[in-house]
């Protein structure tokens, strides 16, 4: 449900970019999606296909999603570890004193236009 709203936001932002850069159409949109962001790639792709048909600028736009791995930093032992595998507790020193270094991003990286 969330993904469709997000797709509309991306398209709204890119329509502004297109207007500023005299773009006729967009052939490719590259997103960076963190592994533990709240957006699910397969849903995003489906929503994209549906929404793209309704907007001229995106009629031929392919959506590429690059995944950014989630990495957590441990305050106690100052090591980093993969978030998805170990969660909130550090696998090295078992401290809960950890925070997400990267992985919640959701960025528009670049677009290919004509």
């Amino acid at each position: 449900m969330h993904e469709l709203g997000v797709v509309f936001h991306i398209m709204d932002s890119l329509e502004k970019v297109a207007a500023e850069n005299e773009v006729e159409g967009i052939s490719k949109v590259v997103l960076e999606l963190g592994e533990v962001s709240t957006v699910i790639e397969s849903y995003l792709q489906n929503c994209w296909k549906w929404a793209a048909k309704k907007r001229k600028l995106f009629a031929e736009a392919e959506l590429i999603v690059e995944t950014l791995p989630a990495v957590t930093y441990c305050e106690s032992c100052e090591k980093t570890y993969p978030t998805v595998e170990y969660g909130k507790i550090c696998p090295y020193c078992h401290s809960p004193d950890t925070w997400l270094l990267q992985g919640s991003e959701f960025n528009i990286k670049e677009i290919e236009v004509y």
Partner: protein
Amino acid sequence: MKEVRILEIKQSVFADNDKQAEELRRELKDKGVFLLNLMSSPGSGKTTTLMKTIETLKDKLKIGVMEADIDSDVDARTISQSGAKVIQLHTGGMCHLDAGMTRQGLDGLETEGIELAILENVGNLVCPAEFDTGSSKNAMILSVPEGDDKPLKYPLMFSICDVVLINKIDVLPYFNFDMEKCKEYIHMRNPQAKIIPICAKTGEGIQEWADWLAEEVRKWREEE
């Protein structure tokens, strides 16, 4: 053959909304309208809590309410009985409100003279957390039947809220809801969060919540 070029964007998907939200927050500050964004799951008691809140604060503050739902106007009808100014917003199927929609809602409400505007967001613990509405403060309600583990499952929502109301405490004896564990989970995600247990039906805790809110409005007015 079309000439193809690459435009580097390098911005968060939410950047546009964040910018609009900042602008709206500044404008509301100039107008003296404190905007509270109230979020929760469907059925946690947002509307009942609002009714009690308005009852408690209506002599102190001029209140306006925006009811956001995917469809229907049942909530706006209920709130209108409180005497507060209210409008119903329809999100057109969307699961949340963004800053642009909030601005439209405020225009529709006509905030002239309103000191406290309350946005009852769409019932949902995921999407509304991602979109800054331009609010001065964020509040959420977690009700006892939902379970004490929700702060672990929906961390973002709990981390962006200034206050968490734990509603329906009258049914605590019937549920395996550990209040202390729940508070601990909330503070794990958000050490600054104010937590107030309430029962909107019986009115328990409502005064503490209303006092907290009135105090936040007062402090916000005094800020530069």
